[in-house]
C-alpha cells in the first residue's frame, strides 16, 4: 500500500493533539515579532498513527530478522531497557536541576563510567559524546589538549586503511592531517609500517581494534610502544568492542583513549540512525582533559564538578544522550559477566559463517576472525555479478544485507557480523540463503540483477538523487 507524504494528507482545521485548556488570560505578542505559524499539515490523531504505522511497515529492524551489518553490531535491543528509559523520573528530568534533586541520574552516570572503565581497563570516562564519531572527535580533542599541555603542536595522525571511515574526518576537525598506514598481507598493521611513519609531528595513531577486516591487531602493544616512544598517543576506535569484552582490556595493551558505541556493543537501539552514545575511556594521563561537568561522588552524595582547569570544555549542551546511557547501563546490569560470553558467541558465530561460506565466496584473509568476517565478489566476477547484486537479493530471502564495499582495502567487500543474539538456526538459514544466491548468480543471474523484488520499491536511482538534490517537499 502506498502512503502519501504528510503534506499530501490532512485538511485545515484538524488537529492530532489535545490542546491544553488555558487557565490564564491571553496576552498578545508584540506585533513587531508576531509571525505566521509554520505551514504544517493539519491531521487527525488516527491520520498520524496510520502514517507512521505504514512507515514502519516499509522498514526492516532487528525484530524483523537477522541484520548482519558488519561493524554495526545489530544485536537484539532488549525491551526492558526501553521501559527503564521511559520511567518518568528519568524521561521527565530537567538537566539543570540542583544536584540534590537529581541524585539518581548522577549516580547512574557515575556508575556507568565505572563499569565502562572496568570493561575497557581504562581509568576514567566521559559520557558526553552523542555518537561514535562524536567520541572520536572528543578523543582527538583530548589528544590535542594533552599535546598542547606538553607544549607540543603536532599536525598529523596515522590512520590504518582498516580503520573506521569517520576517523579521518574526526581528526581533521582537530586540525590533524590523516596519514594513511597500510595493513600488511595478514590484514593487520605491522610495527615496521608504524615505525616508518611515526615522527615528532605526528600526534599518534587511530587504530580500530579489532579492525574492519574483523581481525585483532596483534601487534598493538609493539605499535603503541613505537607511538609512545615518539611522544604520540594511541587512540582505539572501539566500535568493534563486541568481539573482546572480558577478553582484552584496552588499558593494558597501550591504548590511551578508546571510544565505545553504546548503540552497538551495549544493545541500545540504532533508531534508524541514532541517537547513539559514544563515551570515551582514557588513561590517567588524559583524565584531566575530559569534558566537564563530570559526575563525582562526595561522601554519599553525587554532584557535577566543573573545576578541571585542563578540561577541553564541553562537547554537548548537557551530559550527552542520557536516555541512551540508561539503556546501556541496564544492559550491562542485565548481562554482568555474560558480557564475556556475548563476545565469545559473537566470535564463534562469525567464524562459523566464515567457514561455511568460504567455499562459495572469496575470503581475502583466510585466518581466524573476530566478530565479523569479510568476503568479496571475486568468485562471481565471471558471471558479472557484483557484491551489490548479491546483497540486494538477500532481501528477498528475508535478511538485511551485510555491510558492503567497506573496508575500502578489500575490493567488493562483503562484511558480515552476526552478533551474539542470532541463534544457530538463523545463522544456518542465512548461510543457506547466501549459498542459494551464489548458485543463482551463475544459473539465474537476472534474479540478482532485478533484486530486491519483494520490497516496497526496487533499486533506487542514487546518482540522480545526488545530481539534482530534492531535499525538501
Amino acid at each position, binding site marked *: 500500500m502506498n502512503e502519501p507524504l504528510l503534506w499530501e494528507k490532512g485538511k485545515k482545521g484538524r*488537529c*492530532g493533539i489535545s490542546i491544553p485548556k488555558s*487557565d*490564564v488570560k491571553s*496576552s498578545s505578542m508584540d506585533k513587531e515579532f508576531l509571525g505566521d505559524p*509554520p505551514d*504544517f*499539515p493539519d491531521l487527525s490523531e488516527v491520520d*498520524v498513527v496510520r502514517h507512521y504505522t*505504514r*512507515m514502519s*511497515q*516499509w*522498514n526492516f*529492524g532487528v525484530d524483523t530478522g537477522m*541484520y548482519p551489518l558488519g561493524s554495526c553490531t545489530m*544485536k537484539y535491543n532488549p525491551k526492558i531497557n526501553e*521501559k527503564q528509559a521511559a520511567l*518518568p*523520573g528519568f524521561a521527565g528530568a530537567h*538537566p539543570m536541576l540542583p544536584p540534590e534533586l537529581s541524585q*539518581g541520574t548522577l549516580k547512574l552516570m557515575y556508575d556507568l563510567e565505572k563499569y565502562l572503565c*572496568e*570493561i575497557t581497563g581504562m581509568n576514567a570516562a566521559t559520557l558526553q559524546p*552523542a555518537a561514535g*564519531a562524536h567520541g572520536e572527535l572528543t578523543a582527538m580533542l583530548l589528544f590535542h589538549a594533552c599535546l598542547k599541555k606538553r607544549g607540543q603542536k603536532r599536525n598529523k595522525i596515522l590512520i590504518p586503511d582498516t580503520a573506521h571511515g569517520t*576517523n579521518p574526518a574526526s581528526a581533521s*576537525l582537530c586540525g590533524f592531517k590523516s596519514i594513511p598506514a597500510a595493513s600488511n598481507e595478514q590484514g593487520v598493521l605491522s610495527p615496521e609500517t608504524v615505525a616508518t611513519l611515526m615522527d615528532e609531528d605526528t600526534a599518534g595513531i587511530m587504530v580500530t581494534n579489532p579492525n574492519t577486516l574483523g*581481525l*585483532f591487531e*596483534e601487534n598493538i*602493544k609493539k605499535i603503541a610502544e613505537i607511538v609512545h616512544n615518539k611522544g604520540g598517543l594511541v587512540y582505539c576506535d572501539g566500535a568493534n568492542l563486541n568481539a573482546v569484552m*572480558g*577478553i582484552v582490556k584496552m588499558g593494558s595493551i597501550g591504548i590511551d583513549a578508546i571510544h565505545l558505541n553504546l548503540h552497538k556493543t551495549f544493545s541500545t*537501539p540504532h*533508531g*534508524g*540512525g*541514532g*541517537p547513539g552514545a559514544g563515551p570515551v575511556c582514557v588513561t590517567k594521563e588524559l583524565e584531566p582533559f575530559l569534558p566537564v561537568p563530570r559526575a563525582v561522588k562526595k561522601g554519599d552524595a553525587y554532584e557535577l564538578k566543573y573545576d578541571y582547569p585542563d578540561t577541553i570544555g*564541553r562537547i554537548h*549542551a548537557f551530559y550527552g544522550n542520557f536516555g541512551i546511557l540508561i539503556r546501556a547501563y541496564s544492559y550491562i*546490569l542485565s548481562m*554482568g559477566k555474560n558480557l*564475556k560470553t556475548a563476545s565469545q*558467541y559473537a566470535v*564463534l558465530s562469525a*567464524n*562459523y559463517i566464515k567457514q561455511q561460506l568460504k567455499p562459495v565466496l572469496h575470503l581475502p584473509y583466510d*585466518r*581466524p576472525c573476530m566478530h565479523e568476517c569479510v568476503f568479496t565478489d571475486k568468485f562471481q566476477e565471471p558471471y558479472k555479478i557484483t557484491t551489490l547484486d548479491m546483497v540486494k537479493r538477500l532481501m528477498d530471502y528475508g535478511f538485511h544485507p551485510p555491510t558492503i564495499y567497506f573496508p575500502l582495502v578489500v575490493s567488493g567487500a562483503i562484511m558480515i557480523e552476526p552478533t*551474539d543474539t542470532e541463534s*544457530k538456526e538463523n545463522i544456518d538459514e542465512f548461510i543457506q540463503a547466501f549459498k542459494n544466491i551464489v548458485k543463482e548468480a551463475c544459473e539465474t543471474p537476472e534474479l540478482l540483477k532485478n533484486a530486491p523484488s519483494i520490497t516496497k*520499491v526496487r533499486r533506487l536511482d542514487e546518482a*540522480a538523487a*545526488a545530481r539534482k*538534490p*530534492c*531535499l525538501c*517537499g
Partner: protein
Amino acid sequence: MRYLPHTSEDIAEMLKVAGAADLDDLFSSIPDDCRFKGELNLPEMTEWELNSHMADLASQTAVMPEYKVFIGAGSYNHYIPATIPYLINRSEISTAYTPYQPEISQGTLQTIFEYQTLTARLLGMETANASMYDGASALAEALLMAIRIEKGKKKTVAVSSLVHPMYRKAVETYFTPTDFKIVELPYLADGTTDISGLEKIGDLAAVAVQSPNFFGCIENIKSASDKAHNLNALCVTCFTEPLAFGLIKNPGSQGADIVCGEGQSMGIPQSFGGPGLGMFASLNKYVRSMPGRLIGQTTDLDGKRGFVLTLATREQHIRREKATSNICSNQGLCATMSAMYMASIGQTGIRQLAQINHDKTEYLKSELEKAGMQIPFKRAVFNEFVVKFPQGFETKYKELIKNKIVPGIPLESYYPDLKDHYLLCATETISKSDMDELVKEVKS
C-alpha cells in the same frame, strides 16, 4: 541468559565447524600478553531486580507533577501525546540502522525526508538536514560551516553573549584546535544583543545570535542579518525553544543564512538533557557545505517515488581524508519523534499551543512584578524571562526546593554581574495555581 540463544549443543557444533577446540581457542589470534585472564567485576541482575533498582534511581529525581519545576534554559517541559512514544517504539522504526539499503528502509527515509521538510518550514529555511546531536554541537558546526563557505579565509565569528552559555562553551571546545577566533557580543539593557561592535571585526565570517535568547528575549534577527550581510558575513541564528516559531516570526523570514538549535521541545522527553535533537537548516546554495546526513527524493527502476541518503560525497565514505563532516549516527529517532509531533500538532495546533505558552509566561511575569519582584529586561519574551529577586534569595530558593518548587536557575554563575537574577520558565504544563503558589511563596 535470555538474550543469548546458544545452547551447548549449538556451541559444540559451531566450534567444530570453526575448527576451534573451545571458546577460548577462538581467540588464539590475540597474543597472550594482550589477553585479560580475570573475570569482569560487574553486578548482574535479573529483569526484576533491574526493575526495582531503576525505579529506585528514577525516584530520586525531582520531576513534574510532584515537583513544580520552573526551569527552561534549553530544556522544556511540554506535553507529549501518547501516540508518539507508542509509534516510536515500533521496532521497525526504533531498531533499524541508518538507511544504507534504501529498498528496505523507505519508512525511515520518507520519515526523515518529511522531518527535513517540516523543519525547514518551521524555521523558514530552504533545506534542513537529517539532524545534529544537539543544539550546542549544531551551533559549533554551523559556525565551522560558515567559515567553510567563506573558504576559511575569514577566521572570526561573533557570538552573542545571550547565546545559551553551554552552547558557547561547546563552540569554544570545537574551535580550540583551529585557528579561528570567537568574539563575544555584549548585551543591551533590554536583554538583547549589542551588535554595534561588529564593524570593528576585520575578518568576520559569521554572526551568531540566539532568538529567543537565553533570557527568553526575542532578538531583532533582521538587524543582525542585515548588518552581517553588509559586512559580507553570514548570519547564523540558533534557538533552544522552537515552539516560539508558532507565534513569532521564523528566522528564515528575517534573513538568516544558517539556522540551528535544539528541537527537544517538539515531542522529545527532557531525559536529563539528552537525547535531544540538533535541528540544522540553511539556504539551498550552502547545502554542499552542510554537515550531517541528508535524505533526498528519487525514483526506482519502475519510476516510483522513493528516498535515499544523498550527497554522501561530503562524507567520510567516499573521500575519507577530505570529509567535512564526521557525522554518522545522528539523532534519527529524535528527529522522527519531532516529525510526529509536528505532524500531530499541525499549523492550527502549534499556533494555539504557542499562544498558551506565551500567556502562561506573561501571567507569571506580571504576577511576580505585582508581588514586587523586578523584571530587569523589558523586551518581549517567549516562555522564559529573568527576574531579579530580593537580596539573599538563596535561602528562600532552598526553602522552596524543600516545598517541591524549583523557581528557575540562578544566573550569577553564567553572568557574574547578574547576582540574584534568576531565569524562570512557564510552559503549558504549569497551571495558574502552580504559578500563584510560587508567587505566594516568593512573597512570603
